[in-house]
């Protein structure tokens, strides 16, 4: 029973002996006429790093808030480790949240911020401050306890917010776009750190993000959200290599979505297809076995170059390694790709 397995199916998971960390059954959350979350089924395996990926307004944050207890479902049922959670207030759930803008208490110093959860549970002062100091060491901020949140950088506040949640030893840790406000370098460091922290602690992490790169690199499994619904759940490889719908193909890694007529010529099946930009080879041969196209733009990205191609009206993107010799813009090129890399999607034509 492995969360990484591409054939992972939450339905078979439920029949097994293990209870889901979080389970949604036909959960909806409507705000007036807006269906923020619409009949979502979801099972999160204990100990996995689960990412909720989607554009803003897709319902991923509302799902997180439903788990935390800040929102109550309009319909459906939510269980956390087998216990029904509807009507249970946030302060009676052994689930903690790392907020998008950290939500550190400005009137408390770092140590008291981290010890807050233990303080309200009535843990003695010496004991809770010791635990808070340990949590600060865990996020590599030892000795920062006496500072005020306002004296910390964004990355440090992020770590304090993480320590404040982890000190309560939650069964599930919810992270709401926690890296969104950090610059690129810091974000990459924190991604690695969060991932290794999750491995060490073995806590179930539920991570909300709109950044596909972040979701793919960190998560054991990814759920792709759109319009309040889950489009696809699977391992990062699954989501990236075998998108089920045009939305997933386009949103996760900006795949080339190919219309059924085009796909039929290469695979014989009249279905929507997706082709990764890096799977396309571009040569300047005037004729041959491949797709004739015109190079209409190049976009230098450092390690790679992104090409915009016009294949007789169908706009395609290709990514080639830096240093590849390229024809001039406007010239005719020939596109080739392996048949295996053309993925057929489930979505009906």
């Amino acid at each position, binding site marked *: 029973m492995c969360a990484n397995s591409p054939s992972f199916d939450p339905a078979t998971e439920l029949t097994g002996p293990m209870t889901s960390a979080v389970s949604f059954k036909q959960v909806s959350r409507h705000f007036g006429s807006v269906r923020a979350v619409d009949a979502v089924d979801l099972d999160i395996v204990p100990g996995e790093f689960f990412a909720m990926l989607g554009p803003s307004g897709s319902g991923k944050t509302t799902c997180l808030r439903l788990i*935390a*207890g*800040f929102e109550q479902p309009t319909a459906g049922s939510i269980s956390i480790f087998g216990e029904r959670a509807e009507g249970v*207030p*946030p*302060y*009676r759930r052994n*689930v*903690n*949240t790392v*907020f998008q*803008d950290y*939500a*550190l*208490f*400005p*009137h408390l110093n770092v140590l008291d911020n981290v010890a*807050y*959860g233990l*303080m*309200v*549970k009535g843990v003695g002062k010496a004991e809770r401050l010791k635990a808070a100091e340990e949590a600060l060491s865990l996020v590599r901020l030892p000795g920062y306890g006496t500072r005020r949140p306002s004296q910390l950088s964004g990355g440090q506040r992020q770590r304090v917010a993480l320590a*404040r*949640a982890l000190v*309560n030893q939650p069964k599930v840790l919810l992270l709401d776009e926690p890296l969104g406000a950090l610059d690129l370098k810091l974000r990459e460091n924190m991604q690695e750190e969060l991932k290794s922290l999750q491995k060490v602690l073995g806590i179930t992490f539920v991570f909300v993000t709109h950044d596909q790169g972040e979701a793919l690199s960190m998560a054991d499994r990814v759920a792709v959200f759109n319009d309040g619904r889950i489009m696809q759940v699977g391992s990062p490889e699954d989501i990236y290599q075998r998108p089920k719908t045009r939305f997933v193909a386009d949103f996760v890694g900006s795949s080339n979505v190919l219309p059924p007529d085009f796909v039929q010529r290469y695979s014989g099946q009249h279905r929507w297809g997706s082709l990764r930009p890096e799977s396309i080879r571009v040569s300047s041969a005037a004729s041959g076995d491949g797709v004739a196209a015109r190079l209409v733009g190049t976009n230098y990205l450092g390690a790679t170059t992104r090409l915009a191609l016009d294949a007789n009206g169908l706009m395609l993107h290709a990514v080639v390694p830096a240093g590849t010799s390229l024809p001039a813009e406007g010239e005719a090129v020939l596109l080739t790709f392996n048949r295996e890399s053309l993925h057929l999607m489930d979505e009906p034509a």
Partner: protein
Amino acid sequence: MTIAAVQSNPAPAILPGSGGMRGALSDLFWRRPKLLLLLMLLPPVLWLGIVYIGSLFALLAQSFFSIDEFSGLINREFTLKTYGDLFQAANLDIILRTVTMAALVTLASAIVAFPIAYYAARYARGRWKALFYLGVMLPLWSSYLVKIYAWKLILAKEGILTWLLAKLHLLWLLDAWLSLPIVGGNSLSVSFTGTFIVFVYVWLPFMILPVQAALERVPGNLVEASSDLGASPGQTFRNVLFPLALPGIVAGSIFTFSLTLGDYIIPQIIGTSRLFIGQAVYSQQGTAGNIPLAAAFTVVPIVIMGFYLWGAKRMGAFDAL
């Protein structure tokens, strides 16, 4: 628009001239921003420094003079005799009475104001928010005296409050309260309870507005974070909302406390014949003609407010500012 079209327009000057006196003046202020600041600040500083602070110090200086008891003339020599008079038992009574009243009014205002301010800051939106501001500010727009006389009618023995309590068969409650020593009296309008009620009514907006402003600055996700970390609503109030609203409560209490300390009209119209500091100042400088003692009395609220602010600062009330 094509490039040719852009280029056909006449090119503007790179450094166009300032153009006339006003332009030259603007340029001067731009080059010397401190000159502009000086010109802007000079009138108010003169007003505050000479007219306001100056007259206050003139008054305070009077408190170190004394009155000749036989002639009633002011003896303009430095003496602490007036302060000796101030600390007579009767005067200390007045001070204690006023400070107690100010403290109780402040406490009651804070308790009444907090839920209103909390509602306005967290829940009221759009039209309801406008209605809130209107409701809080409206009493401030009408005359202070009219409001106090209105309250005199409400609290009088023949007033609406007595009538209402009689209808509710609760008159015994009012009678029981009025039979109590100190807070009681013949009717609410001639008791300290009446004075207290009217003080709270009149100063309440000065408490609501700063508390609302403070609560408005508390991000909603701090309340969620507290709840997420296991704090019940009561714990969230004690550990997050109250400490963060405290600067607002202190700001409001400075108003309610100092305004009650200095007011002489409300206790004169509604209340007993026993004096408050404001009334003492009024009668000393008026009928009694004892300006030095009146001046010494005005020093009392200033000193008390000084200690009050010092204590509030020590308690950390301004830390979250």
